[in-house]
């Protein structure tokens, strides 16, 4: 399970890291948990950043959906528009990505321009 960061602050500054990666000339995408229902491993506002070398920092779940999020992020870094992803037990995809903890979460993925 990913380390739980405090609600308000104190966590590693992922957005600063995203800007650093961008400055190095990499494409960067940011994924943010925008809503949750039921038991979800990470609270609203949790973020995952990824770059074109598949460097990862942060998390949007306990690890169950990161693979699917990164897959979408690659297309978005390549120029596709930002996208709202939904994962849940009612969704067939939930089994594929393994969100078997009973929660539903929505994750917005966008590129850093």
């Amino acid at each position, binding site marked *: 399970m990913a380390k739980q960061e405090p609600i308000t602050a104190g966590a590693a500054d992922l957005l600063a890291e995203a800007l650093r990666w961008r400055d190095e000339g990499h494409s960067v995408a940011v994924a943010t948990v925008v809503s949750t229902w039921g038991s979800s491993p990470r609270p609203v506002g949790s973020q995952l950043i990824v770059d074109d070398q598949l460097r990862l920092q942060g998390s949007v779940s306990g690890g169950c959906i990161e693979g699917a999020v990164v897959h979408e992020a690659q297309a978005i870094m390549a120029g596709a528009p930002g996208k709202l992803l939904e994962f849940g037990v009612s969704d067939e995809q939930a089994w594929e990505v393994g969100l078997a903890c009973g929660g539903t979460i929505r994750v917005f993925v966008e590129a850093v*321009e």
Partner: protein
Amino acid sequence: MKRALLEALQAARRAKRPAALVTDLRDGQQALIVDSDRQGDLALDAGLFAAVEAAIQADRSGPLAEDDGIFVHVFNPPLRLITVGAVHISQALVPMAQLAGYEVLMVDPRKAWANTERFPDVTLVEGWPDEALRSLQPDHRTAVVVLTHDPKLDDPALTVALRSPAFYIGALGSRKTHGKRLDRLRGEGLEEAALARIHGPIGLAIGAKSPAEIAIAILAQMTQVLHGASPLVKARPPGQRQGQGAEAAQ
């Protein structure tokens, strides 16, 4: 996410100003709200703008009830903990509170206690507790914990804290000590409603004895108050009296 907006957000966070990044999940347009100023390509009508300001005030990220296609990501400065008294309990409480995400500010005019050797990673605030607290301006995201056991230092700190909107105010000391403290503060003109805000004896009733355990009891109570959780009513340690806080060791 426009680079300029991201940089402006980071600047606001560095300056410890409350901010919110607002995203229209349907098209990715965004606005950054800092101190009631909006920038970015997402327009917000007055109703949505007020809802964003309310989310910042409540420190709550999420979709807006008014329009769940609009996501508000609140970036508030860290919660603050002002500890009055650079005592043994503080040496445990400071790192615990920092782990929980608090910015910790230490107030104690006694240099033998408040020094960087005993407290290497904390901001030491100069001045007598009342003037120090006045300069720090406790707000609704600040906790004030008074631990010196010395009325000369504790009382002036409490006098200022009780006239602030601090979300948590706690004072170390047994019930007897706390009773005398309340009498003194009444003499300072503080009203019962204000005095009732003090958590004293400080900390949840978990049978805490050592400085580290008392720090846990304090931080747990701060967390409980912060999130509006109901008081603990079960799992009292065997042999412990009802309502007994960390006072056994206070």
